[in-house]
């Protein structure tokens, strides 16, 4: 079964980049432009994993994380952020992984792979 990854990010070019790279890595993808839409997709499409931006207009990624866990605390969530201060927010500690945003999407793809296969991937 192909695993479904939901990307929640307000920046269109990043959504496109992540979708492209994750599809290339063999995942089915869907993308939401904000947290509210992301939650709708969690409800309607039952993704196997969520890649979540923290700083977004409207509901931020931390609030969105809480609401995802409230719906289903078994969905793995990867927080994807350009800022390192997110660790000051204790709620982010409930995420499964954190990836710092960079032009190299390799780390994100690797993290998604590890979480979905639960097996080490060769470096």
């Amino acid at each position, binding site marked *: 079964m192909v695993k479904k990854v939901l990307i929640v990010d307000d920046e269109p070019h990043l959504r496109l980049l992540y979708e492209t790279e994750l599809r290339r890595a063999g995942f089915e993808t869907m993308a939401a432009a904000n947290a509210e839409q992301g939650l709708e997709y969690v409800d309607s499409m039952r993704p196997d994993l969520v890649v979540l931006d923290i700083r977004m207009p409207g509901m931020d990624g931390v609030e969105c994380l809480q609401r995802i866990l409230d719906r289903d*605390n078994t969905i793995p969530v990867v927080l994807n952020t350009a800022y390192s201060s997110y660790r000051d927010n204790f709620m982010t500690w409930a995420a499964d992984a954190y990836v710092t945003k960079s032009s190299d999407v390799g780390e994100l793809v690797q993290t998604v792979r590890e979480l979905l296969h639960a097996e080490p991937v060769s470096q």
Partner: protein
Amino acid sequence: MRTPQWFRRVVTVILAGGQGERLYPLTRDRSKPSVPFGGVYRIIDFTLSNCVNSGLKRIFVLTQYKSYSLDKHLQKGWNIFNYEADEFLYRIPPQRRVGLKWYEGTADAIFQNIYLLERTKPELVMILSGDHIYKMDYNRMLDFHIEKKAGLTVSVAVVPREGAHEFGIIEVDADWRIVGFAEKPANPRPIPGDSGHCLVNMGVYCFDTQELVRGVCQDARLPESHHDFGRDIIPAMVGQGNVYAYPFRDPGTGAPEYWRDIGTLDSYYAASMDLVSRQPAFNLYDREWPYRTWQAPVPPAKSVHGFTPDGSLAGMIANSIVGGGTIISGGRVEGSLLGRNVRVNSYSRVTDSIVFDDVVIGRYAELHRTIVDKDVVIPEGMVIGRDPAKDRHLFKVTDDGLVVVPKSIRFKD
């Protein structure tokens, strides 16, 4: 002595959401920490007094069920904190910040309130229970935690092996590092070298904040978890090697200290009776360690001597605790705890019983091994506690034969 400055590193969280179903009907209109105890106190006063006497004055009280009575008590009796000096007592009902659920367990209560720790940024978090009767200087436990460089320290009581199966049993190595944990095992393991006693989890924890946050966040993601410190968090952390047991013993003699978890009506009764013996097992009268409560503006207790028809003295009090405003007006009270504004009328007898505030005991009435909740008039001549079969028609009677008269019931004349 630690300075107030030092204590800014510590935040205390008191879990006071206990529904206390096994204390029903005393918990019909109030949560367990708010159940009256010892004549004038509420159960939570003991933990709160321990905090204040220990210097811990940054306190969150997490409430949940039927919190009106507890809220009122904390507002009236515990408004003693200096908020300008960064002391506080905040009552926190479920905020539903994290989800739309009530607290699912003790660890979930912390997880749902992780925002509070984020805002106050303590180094250490003391997690206490609002339904225990004990006297504890938490500084000794903090010293132990710091000396051991522990991530989590669990306070453990030393209890006789029989009866220990009701608790979480802790196993330690020679350095008091926790190496095993069993929740309510059928056959509890004794302390090595002391086959008659076990170490039980008191539900009193000292956490490094980072360890606590990591622990409850990881636990929140486990679908099979009960989200409970005793059943889930401690067993998950034991393998880390930085979890220690602090033995709750007299530092001078090494004897086990008094600690009671008020779980059932019978344990509530037994702990109450521990206060009224001649040499009480639990001493309320230590002026170095005052137990604070809401002091109602009531006059001192009073007795009025009456005489029985044969001329002997009827009004008397022995081995009892009597709250303010109570008048023993020609009745006999022995081995009992009376709250405030109780009236014990002529020729009545109250033995081995607990009577809450605002109760009138009618003439010739008799109470034996009976708990009477607030605001009840016991009619003239009524006898309770002598005939369990008869009492069962009207009241809750426990396996030990204790009778409970619920709050505000009205008897027909």
